[in-house]
Every structure is written in C-alpha cells, then in structure tokens.
C-alpha cells in the first residue's frame, strides 16, 4: 500500500486540455485532490466534468497537460503500470455499469478474481458479503441487475468499486436520475465510504444537494475551465451570477 501524507496531493492535474475534433471540451484545467478529502467538481451538463474524470483513469487521452496519480504521470504509464494505478482507484460510473449478464455476486466477484488473485473462494465470499452489508444490500446477492432499482444499482456498483479497497474514489454523477430521498442516501454513503475505507474522493456532479452533503472543497467548471475553487461557504456567499444560479 502506498503511504501518503495528509497534505500531499493524491491527484494532481496541470493545464489539462482535451478536445474532440474542433470542439474543445477542457481548456487548461488544473486541480489537486489531497489525501483524505472529498473534492466536488461542480458544473453544468457539457462543461467537461465527465471527460475530466475519464482522463484521470486514461479512458480518454488528454491532448495536453499532466495528470499525476499517486505521483505517477498517467499519460506516460505502460499497460502494466496503468493497471497497477487503476487497481488503487474505484470508479463509480454514471449509469452504474453493472454487467447485465452477471448476477450481483458475479459482478462483485469479477474485479476480485482479477485483482486480488490470492484470495480463496471463502475469503472472496466473505469480502462480497462485507461490501454488500456496507451498502445495505446483502439480500440482493443473487439478483440480476435488471431486477434492481436505480438506487440499488448505484449501491451495488459502489460495492463493486469498494471490493478492491481503493485509495481513491472517482464518482461520476452519483445521484443523477435518482429521487431526492435515494440521492440523499447515496450522499450519506459517499461520506460513510470516506470514513470506513479512508478514501480520497473526486465527486463529479451538478446536484447541489449532493455537493453540499459531501464536499470538503469545491471546484466549479464552466465552459471547460476552472471558474472558481473554494469551500462550500464561499460558494454559498458568492454574489457571482453563475454561482448563484447553482446555489439558489
């Protein structure tokens, strides 16, 4: 396990640019995620939030700029080193991304078999039950993804990312498409995960309630660039029209 001090940046992004054809989605984005904090990246749809988070795990390659995760430049890693870094990151996808052809247990077993290869079947089962209990869905172990509600899918998906004991959690719109009650439950779960698993989290959202409930620090993206960075109070008190439109 990599040892990281509290003041050290776990993720460091510098002057990141990403475009698709002529469309420039990210224009010179720089940010740092410090150890043990929840950093919320706020912004309207299409502001480049999801592109940013996908560049961190190199699902997308940036055109310019640097992305350092645990001190390593993600852009320069070979396939094996990239796999090693990815094993320390849990990624909660916007859609949940549960494998439709597998039941909940198989979904959770999938990363475990590939990443924690030395575990016995008994240890695997124990681990699966532990994470399912942590997200409050132990009784869904034999269900197929199609039998789960939107909120349950998100929870199971969260359990699948937690099963590998990640150091960093990346949440891509964790509350999108959920009702307010389930959204609040997911926000609480994000805070629980931070406490129990001692993770540092980057939360991409446009849901202001989720940002309020989870953020230690906030960054607002607008038109692919950092618009404002600070604590939640600073955003709440801001007189800026764009920020006020989010926090009204």
């Amino acid at each position, binding site marked *: 396990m990599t040892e990281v001090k509290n003041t050290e940046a776990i993720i460091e992004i510098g002057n990141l640019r990403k475009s698709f054809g002529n469309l420039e989605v990210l224009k010179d984005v720089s940010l740092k995620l410090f150890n043990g904090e929840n950093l919320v990246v706020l912004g309207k749809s299409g502001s480049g939030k999801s592109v940013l988070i*996908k560049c961190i795990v190199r699902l997308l390659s940036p055109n310019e700029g640097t992305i350092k995760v645990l001190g390593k430049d993600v852009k320069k890693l070979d396939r094996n080193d990239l796999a090693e870094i*990815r094993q320390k990151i849990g990624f909660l996808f916007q859609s949940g991304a549960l494998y439709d052809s597998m039941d909940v247990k198989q979904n959770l077993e999938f990363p475990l078999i590939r990443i924690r290869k030395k575990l016995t079947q008994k240890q695997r089962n124990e681990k699966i039950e532990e994470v399912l209990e942590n997200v409050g869905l132990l009784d869904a172990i034999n269900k197929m993804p199609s039998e789960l509600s939107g909120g349950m899918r998100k929870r199971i998906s969260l359990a699948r990312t937690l099963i590998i004991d990640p150091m960093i959690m990346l949440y891509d719109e964790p509350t999108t498409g959920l009702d307010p009650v389930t959204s609040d439950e997911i926000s609480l779960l994000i805070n629980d995960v931070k406490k129990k698993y001692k993770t540092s989290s980057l939360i991409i959202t446009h849901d202001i309630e989720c940002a309020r409930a989870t953020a230690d620090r906030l960054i607002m993206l607008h038109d692919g660039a950092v618009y404002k960075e600070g604590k939640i109070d600073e955003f709440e008190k801001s007189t800026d029209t764009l920020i006020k439109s989010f926090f009204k």
Partner: protein
Amino acid sequence: MRRIKPVIKVIPVIRSATINLSEKTIDKTIKASSFLEEVANFILFILRTFKETFSRKFEFREFFRQCFQIGYKSLPLISITGAIMGLVLTIQSRPILVTFGAVTLLPSMVAISLIREIGPVITALICAGKIGSGIGAELGSMKVTEQIDAMEVSSTNPMRFLVVTRVLATTLMLPLLVLYADAWGILGSWIAINIKGDVSFVLFSSQAFGYLKFIDFLPAVVKTFFFGAVIGLVGSYKGYTAGRGTESVGIAANSAVVLASLLVIIVDMIAVQITDMLI
C-alpha cells in the same frame, strides 16, 4: 446583343453546375475516405484480436459460456432450418430427376448439395442473423452503458474478455452447427422422399453417401471456420465500436448482420474458387 444574351444566361447555370459538381466531389471524397478509414479500423481490430488470442491470460470460463450461448442455444433454430432445407431441396429436385429417369440419384444429389454448399452457406447466413446481431447488440449496449469502460478500469482487458472469447466461440461452433444442420437436412430429405414413396433409412443412407467422397466434405468444413470467424469478428467490431447513444445499439446489430452476410458470401466465393483450383 443577340449573341451575348444567351451566354449571360448560361453563366449562372455553369456556375451553379460547377458548385454542384464540386460539392458532389467533396461529398464523394468524404464518403470514400470514411469508407477507407472503416476498412483500416476493421483490419486493425482483426490484428488486435489475433494478437490478444495468443496472449497468456486466456478467459476460459467466458469462452465456454460463449460456446454454450452461441452453439447450444442455436440448436433449435438450426434443426428446423436444416430439416426444411433438405425437405424443400428434395421436393424441388424430384420432378426434374423423374423427367430424366434419374430419381435414384436424388438422395446422393441432395446430400452432395447440402454438404458442399447449401448447408454451410444457409447455416452461416442464419448464424450471421442470430449470432452476429446478438454479439453486435450485446457489445453495443455494453459500450453505451459504460460496461466496457468499467471492465477496463477494473484491470480487465475487454478485447480479451469480450472479443477474443466470442470470435473463437463462433469460429469453433459454426462448423459443428453446419454439420448438425447437414444431418437434419438429410433427415428432412428422407422424410420428403417418403411422402411420395417408401424408402427405408438404411437404403436412403447408402444411396445418399454412396457418391459422397471425403474431398466433398473437407473444403466444406474448412470454409465454415472462416464463416464463423467472419461472423464473430464483424459482430464484435460493430458492437465494440458502436457510438454512445442508444440508437447506436440498433445500428450496430443491423450493420453486423448486413456486413457479416455479405462477407460470408464473398468468403464462400473465394473458397469455391480455391477448391476448384486445388481439386
């Protein structure tokens, strides 16, 4: 003035024709370059699949699951199609052979036609529809719902897990499905003959296989491996490279069927030419 006037009238026509021509040329150039880009991407996809096939970490469990899905679950459809193929071929051929007084050759003619050409091609086309579209839609929907991305970030190579297993399963299952269809076709032929006559299965079999040589059988089986590979590769490619919207899933499934069917016919034509040169 009389001479100049028509020329002035013609100038805008020529100009608009020139503009139309250049727009059409640009459109055609774009279409041609995107077609070539698609061909290049498909070739790269084949090479990558080939490379991943021989990597050390082979996904045996997923491969056997795909063999079950592609092979076993296609059996009912292939049985019905095979039997009908034999039945129809026999009923259609019988009057001509009766005219020439060669009705005793009917079983062997049907067997040779089925094994050499009709069985492999019809079965491959049906599999292009069932299996090709299934793979295209499944991988396309996995792409749209970010399941392929999720696989990638959990340190699993999606090419190896999703594509290699499916391509190998179709490559190995298609020859078996074709042989199975041939068997049903011959049974269908025997049933058709017994509608208007009374021939025992032993006599029918001896007549059917009497003229059949190993050389009829071998090229037909060999080409079905290629048919299987084509169906698996095209289905996987179309699904794996699908766009992001839900509409892309339908497009991937549809184009997988169309392209796989076309390529099966082309591969068959090449195989027949090669067989003809060698034998």
